[in-house]
């Protein structure tokens, strides 16, 4: 495994475009902390975002993972282009001739995907922890460790999405077309979602039961938007209530769905490569 990671690392290190995208990605992740600096000071109205409770533990885990997930597009670009370029430069052929097996090739790509997801998760964990320790109203360990499952959800979400990118890179072989295909997939999934919701208009739960299995939806479903919850947190804080509404919780079956998709994307990448003549 270490050897395969090393191989990927050599490839990555020498790709200027990928390095640039990765740097932008981490700068953007760091920029979440800049939200803390948002201040409006217009006459009588004073608004200081950091004091609105968004950096309160445990809410910060939810808020930051949700915001950070938008930037995953930068890393998926790296994954798709690194994979598709192996085809356009025909280096995949050379890799196999040099003695890498097809399985090892896909595994090395998957390890890269895994590492990207893991580093992103650790990065956002550290940033959230620092921001939380600076701005949170509650800094007791028992509260900090609440809701840490958002970190797991964030990791799984990235893992699934990046595997999707890997699959499209292998399937389409051309980076630009693979990205386009990702967009088309997103549009088609959205249309199907709309149609299903419309069809089961009187029974939204039934629609939800079906659409929760769609790949992109299942990934976005992992971490719900946190804004509705912000008021609840504030209210809870203000009234010193300890119970918080849990509509926004991570459901383990949702994580399982995304993990199954991750497996399928990686598995079918392998099957595709195995079947193809290069």
């Amino acid at each position, binding site marked *: 495994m270490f050897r395969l990671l*090393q191989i990927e690392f*050599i490839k990555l290190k020498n*790709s200027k475009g990928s390095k640039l995208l990765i740097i932008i990605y981490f700068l953007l992740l760091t920029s979440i902390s800049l939200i803390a600096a948002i201040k409006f000071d217009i006459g009588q109205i004073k608004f200081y975002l950091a004091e609105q409770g968004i950096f309160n533990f445990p809410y910060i885990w939810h808020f930051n993972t949700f915001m950070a997930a938008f930037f995953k597009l930068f890393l998926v670009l790296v994954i798709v282009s690194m994979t598709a370029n192996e085809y356009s430069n025909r280096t995949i*052929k050379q890799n196999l*001739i*040099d*003695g890498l097996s097809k399985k*090892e090739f896909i595994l090395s790509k998957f390890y890269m995907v895994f590492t990207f997801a893991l580093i992103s998760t650790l990065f956002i964990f550290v940033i959230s922890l620092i921001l939380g320790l600076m701005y949170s109203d509650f800094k007791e360990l028992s509260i900090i460790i609440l809701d840490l499952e958002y970190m797991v959800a964030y990791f799984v979400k990235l893992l699934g999405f990046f595997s999707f990118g890997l699959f499209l890179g292998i399937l389409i072989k051309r980076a630009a077309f693979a990205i386009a295909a990702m967009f088309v997939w997103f549009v088609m999934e959205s249309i199907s979602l709309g149609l299903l919701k419309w069809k089961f208009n009187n029974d939204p739960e039934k629609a939800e039961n079906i659409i929760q299995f769609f790949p992109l939806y299942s990934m976005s479903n992992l971490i719900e938007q946190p804004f509705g919850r912000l008021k609840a947190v504030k209210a809870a804080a203000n009234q010193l209530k300890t119970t918080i509404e849990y509509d926004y919780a991570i459901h383990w079956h949702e994580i399982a769905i995304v993990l199954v998709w991750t497996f399928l994307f990686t598995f079918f990448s392998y099957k595709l490569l195995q079947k193809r*003549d*290069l």
Partner: protein
Amino acid sequence: MKTILSLKNLNKKYGKVHAVNNLSFKIQKGNVYGILGPNGSGKSTTLGIILNVVNKTSGEFSWFNGTISTHNALKKVGAIIESPNFYPNMSAYENLRLVCKIKEISTHKIDEKLEIVGLLNRKNSNFKTFSLGMKQRLAIASALLNDPEILILDEPTNGLDPQGIHQIREIIIQIANNGTTILLASHLLDEVEKVCSHVVIIRDGIKLYEGKTDEMTASFGFIDIKTEQNQEKLIELLLTFKGIKTLTKKGDIIVASLSNEISTTEINKFCFKNDIVLSHIVKRKPSLESQFLTLTNHLN
């Protein structure tokens, strides 16, 4: 003798096209093999199959008597396919380092191999800045990194200028002289003739001949004869000579095709005795080209 590679009834079909048809042959250690065939005869497909990039339709092949899996066997092989494929934005050195990681060998031989192909001074240049000849030489360096048990070359001089072709051939001959087993696919006959001890000829995916290069034909060669005197008389005379199969006129030269081992001295003596003085007499071995054309046209 150690068998490095054996193919048994190998088949590859692309839809209706039967690219490799029931191909069997063996590669023994220490020999230099040429796979000859016209363009599109299935040479590259065959190499693709044994190199793990093309899936066979049926049949078998095994490396090193089937003792290890194909991808592990390939770590002991050096192979170059038509065009050199490397990472364009990586330097020559980094590209070779990657190959070392894949082959699970140490990187300490990189400089040595770059030296062999004359690229040591360009080791830190990006691959995309290389000329085609340099790319091909880098590919050879890459194939030599593991001191391979067998070097496989597919049309290594394709698209190169005469100087590039010469450089590559020199390198190949040098490697062959070191005792490395080589498998060279080519449609350039003189290339094969100069380098290979054994030859496999295929056409339309079918094997036409397998054996030593110099045993390829039963012919005893040709003798070119010329006289300043009466040519008709010479022909008449030669027809009576035992061991001459046919005579053909090529301008003022008469080409005698032999059915026996005959020396030029014998012919010269014979003609002189019969009052004909020869002005030119040369014995030729049949060229690989003529044998190749005979073989490949035979089935037409």
